[in-house]
């Protein structure tokens, strides 16, 4: 976010913690069939890892994982993966999102549902992760000289003194 008061402790600790958080996020998505968790929580954890790197190192960090321009297209790919899984079941004659209707040779119906749930969780995780990263990038994309709209520019970092309070807002 800022490079003004970055210490070496924050840099090293965030670089170590972000990978652990992302690994735990992948674990939560994949292991969501057996333990608490799922696509939403895992996607939020993955986004937390990326956001931690960007808070510590600035907006240019970890662009290789989720770049700023590709976040919204990746989110739409995730949502379309979810909706497309439902449409595939519709093509085989089942109801919408009825994964058991897809005939896979050699696999009985509950296992098909198992992998359908896994595919859907991947879609949710991708969409949620990229949307949260995109919101964070958009919130920080305003340059600092036009931060405070409608206020004096020197109010931006310190609390407003008592005598300068606007009497109209009280």
């Amino acid at each position, binding site marked *: *976010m*800022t490079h003004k008061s970055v210490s070496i402790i924050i840099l090293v600790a965030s670089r170590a913690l972000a990978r652990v958080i992302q690994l735990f996020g992948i674990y939560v998505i994949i292991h969501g069939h057996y333990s608490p968790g799922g696509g939403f929580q895992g996607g939020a954890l993955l986004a*937390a890892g990326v956001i931690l790197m960007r808070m510590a190192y600035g907006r240019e960090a970890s662009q290789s994982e989720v770049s700023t321009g590709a976040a919204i297209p990746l989110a739409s790919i995730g949502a379309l993966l979810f909706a497309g899984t439902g449409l595939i079941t519709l093509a085989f004659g089942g109801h919408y999102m009825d994964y058991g209707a897809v005939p896979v040779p050699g696999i009985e119906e509950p296992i098909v549902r198992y992998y359908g749930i896994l595919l859907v969780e991947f879609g949710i995780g991708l969409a949620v992760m990229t949307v949260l990263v995109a919101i*964070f990038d958009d*919130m*920080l994309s305003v340059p600092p000289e036009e*931060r405070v709209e409608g206020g004096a520019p020197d109010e*931006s970092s310190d609390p407003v003194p008592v005598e300068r309070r606007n009497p109209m807002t009280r």
Partner: protein
Amino acid sequence: MNWLVEIVLYLLLLTTALLALSVRDLLAGAAAATAFTFTMALLFISMGAIDVGFTEAVVGAGIVGVYFFAAIYQTSRGTRD
């Protein structure tokens, strides 16, 4: 023994809620709101709703707090009332 943990959590919930409403520094208010959310997640887990508690901890304490901090960084830290 479970009710003792829950009473401690309820008291912590009340304390953090009143702190988040009464403090004048917006950054401290955001931190208190994050603590409120995390206490809420612990309360959900003590009630047995593991999934809800996990979602609350991840989204409320992990993502929304970061968004509060980003918004405070982009605007001003003091409050007018």
